[in-house]
């Protein structure tokens, strides 16, 4: 008899213990919008650890240090948080792009990250914002930058028993903002053909003093593209600088041809997205 055991612990420690000691396949359940679909047609014994009863997993706190985002906070709740949106509008927009209105009530940034799809919308936005993953496991706590968290297609650096317990977004410098854009052939309910998250810091005279550019859906993992950032830093984000950033992103991308797009198309479009996202982020940073 196949059995699925469901547990809903109320502390990180209990969750880690359950995950670490499970004799069958163990999955963390946040919103479940990926997990439940993946379980369809699977008939193996498994342990489901629902983390929504753990208060810190479901809370998002803004402080002088930045934002401490509980990985299981639903996208709909994030979209309603004007305080977070004021700091990281691009990240909130990325989270808003996931799924339908119904899915928005369940899906979360942490879930999107742990599912580790190459096309995940929030990952480039997190990378652009220097987000850090706090991971707790049987051997204690460690912190990993988001760009190092995902290691392959639906693979990440977490090992058995580990749980993503917090996403830390450091407080950006003054006159900094972000944007995330993705390309899909329709208006919603689709998977990114390419995505770009950009964070821009402007000096008093409008010169770009700092930038982070991350791209998605154009390699096995989202990529941080320092060359694209370098093309922007020191410029006033004129057309030449934006095009140089776009070209750097196209050059850094390593897409595949599949039913969602060709190599040539993805390489081109990811550059267009970087250019456009940089412009939006700069407008936000200046205003």
């Amino acid at each position, binding site marked *: 008899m196949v059995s699925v055991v469901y547990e809903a612990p109320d502390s990180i420690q209990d969750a880690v213990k359950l995950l670490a000691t499970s004799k069958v396949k163990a999955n963390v359940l946040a919103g479940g919008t990926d997990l439940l679909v993946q379980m369809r*047609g699977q*008939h193996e014994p498994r342990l489901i650890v629902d983390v929504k009863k753990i208060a810190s997993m479901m809370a998002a706190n803004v402080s002088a240090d930045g934002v401490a985002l509980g990985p299981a906070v639903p996208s709909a709740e994030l979209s309603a948080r004007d305080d977070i949106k004021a700091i990281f509008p691009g990240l909130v927009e990325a989270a808003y792009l996931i799924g339908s209105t119904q899915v928005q009530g369940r899906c979360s940034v942490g879930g999107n990250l742990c599912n580790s799809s190459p096309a995940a919308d929030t990952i480039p936005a997190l990378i652009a914002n220097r987000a850090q993953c706090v991971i707790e496991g049987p051997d204690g706590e460690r912190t990993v930058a988001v760009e190092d968290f995902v290691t392959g297609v639906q693979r990440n650096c977490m090992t058995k028993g580990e749980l993503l317990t917090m996403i830390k977004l450091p407080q950006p410098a003054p006159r900094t903002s972000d944007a995330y854009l993705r*390309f899909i*052939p*329709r*208006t*919603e*309910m*689709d*998977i990114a*053909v390419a995505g770009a998250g950009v964070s821009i810091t402007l000096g008093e005279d409008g010169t770009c003093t700092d930038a982070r550019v991350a791209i998605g859906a154009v390699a096995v993992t989202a990529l941080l593209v320092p060359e694209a950032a370098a093309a922007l830093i020191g410029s006033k984000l004129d057309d030449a600088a934006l095009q140089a950033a776009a070209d750097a992103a196209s050059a850094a991308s390593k897409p595949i041809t*599949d*039913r*969602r*797009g*060709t190599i040539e*198309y993805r390489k*081109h*479009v990811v550059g*267009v997205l970087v250019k456009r996202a940089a412009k939006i982020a700069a407008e936000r940073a200046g205003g």
Partner: protein
Amino acid sequence: MSEAQDYKYIGQRTIRPDGYDKVTGRANYAADLALPNMIWGKVLRSPHAHAKIKSIDTSAAEAHPDVFAVATHADIPNQRNPGALNILAKDKALYHGHAVAAVAARTEQAAEEALGLIKVDYEVLTPVMNLDDAMAPNAPLIHDQLFTNGLPEKPSKPSNVASRMEMSKGDIEAGFKEADIVIEREFRTPTVHQGYIEPHACTVRYDADGQSMIWCSTQGHFDVRGSTANMLNIEHSKLKVIASEIGGGFGGKTTVYIEPVAMILSRKSGRPVKIQMDRDEVFKGSGPASATRNKVKIGARKDGTITAMEAHLYYESGAFPGAAPLGPGCMTIFTPYDVENQYVEGFDVVVNKPKVAAYRAPGAPQSEFACEMVINELADELGIDPIDFRLKNAAKEDTQTLYGPKLKAVGLVECLEAAKSSPHYQSALEQGVGRGVAAGFWFNIGGVSSVIINMNPDGTGTVLEGSPDIGGSRASMQMMAAEELQLPIETFTTIIPDTAHLAHNDTTGGSRTTFATGMAVIEAAADVVRQFKERAAAVWNVTPEQVQWTDGVAINANGEDKMTAAEICANAGRTGGQITGRGNINARGAGPSFGVHIADIKVDRETGKADVVRYTAIQDAGKAIHPSYVEGQYQGGAAQGIGWSMNEEYIYNKDGLLENPGFLDYRIPLASDLPMIETIIVEVPNSFHPYGVRGVGETGIIPPLAACGTAVSKSIGIRMTELPLSPPRILKAIQEAS
């Protein structure tokens, strides 16, 4: 007569009778029926596009403790049935997803497990995945004994070209000699699916006494009975088919796939069997529409008179010859134009894809796309407004069609005029937006419909009709019965009973239902009126001729006597028995429906993404019985046509395997992808229908292809010739042009 007539009930926007059930979730669809002791059927499908089936070993599956029955092609009793090879493959698997075997087991999971135990020994063959490859010299043959039909001489060698047809009128060469300008272009359209939301499903029971039942989602339960009975040698009287509520069909539910399989499994197991396709199976195993390659050449004089029209059409038929809607493609292509010299040649070609099925105006969108694109290019070259160019050459009453009859009164000119004066066409274009217009023609059909109206003792009536309701026909039937009997619409309830309760009805298709079944309703209602008069006459001791039926009341012409329908019905038992009206007809004279669409599209030149920013559909309804449903048909047709134009296509890999069998990557438009589709109903009555009705369901999918194709071409300044106009294709065209 209908033009001047005032109607009391038709033409209103009443509340739809099926609305409550659908909104509350109470409606029962194909997958909603479960029976006691029911078991689950699953179909094993070919993992190859083209393969010889050397052997099928089902012994391990049969030995599975939860398996009740296994079926292969050998279990089909009537092997000569032409559809049997698509139901379960015999010697060859002809496309990725072709049904090869089936099992029935206690649970879905056990059935799935058992599928894995069936051993099929395949010899994989080279797949033939498109027209070019299929017609190449030395192409692998899909059928060893397929010799092209319709050539002047029988070919000496088999090929993948199943048939050729041609049609002509006038003198095509003389026509081109008269032309000042001639444009010839070749166009391609992809394999597309109807995209109905409800997957195929059925629950089937074969009893020990030989009685059997099918519950399924279909556009024609009488045809489900006919084909299943023929394939399995069952008498029609012993097979009852119940049509469930239907979640979309668009032509794709006019054939059987799983119903005969479930019946075989039920007969073998002695249990009711349920089979439900998942979305993946729907895309792989049902019938999409033909991909095509069409060349069109049109000549015109400087004054805008078209002198000659020529086309060469190539339609994929899927893996079985003769399935392509080539005839309609050839017949419709030039019908919007009153041009003497026309020539069309067409080819039906087999490829390793699913057997194509009907899709809304089958065959017409592809061929008319090619024609309308060239018409628009000619208009530009001649410097004439595209609507004026069409008006100058428009088909009208007495125009001789290429395919046979002269047209009766039709509404093309009226649609073009309505388009020209529409707020949309009169509006200025924003920078970067392209505008396209296109016309569309579809014949519509009539056919066999059988209707009964049972009058109840309280004076209400039940309309029994046999056309599954895919577009609101129950409301229209109710309204037409009300009109004919001059009784309030709420007097009538319309139901679609099973095949045992009515004589045969043709399938809901060809936009025939409101026209043909509507005429049967009118005839049945007239039959009721006749009997009402007889009953009143008997009570008043006068002749029926002396009784008038006015405003829903019998009036004695010789006196003051009046009798309501309720009074006649309440008394019916004492005046000769209960009253039933009957209308069993073969409707002739379906009036064609012409349409004209206007599309405004803006292309993002950096990404190639095209957004439809404004869209208007104008079409002739003859007489709109329920205008909201008519508008819904226009909008639905436009939405599907826009999808066909912009993003929908079957994507196969190099091995001929379908890569996008799901709505995530087979992109039908979402509500947010479309603007509100504006509609204009034109009414030029069809003289064959008492109220002037024309079918409206199909024409609306035809004009979008060229309207969108032209709008995109204008937005980017490059003439596009291949659908879909997906972002990568548009971007490539822009990059190559610069």
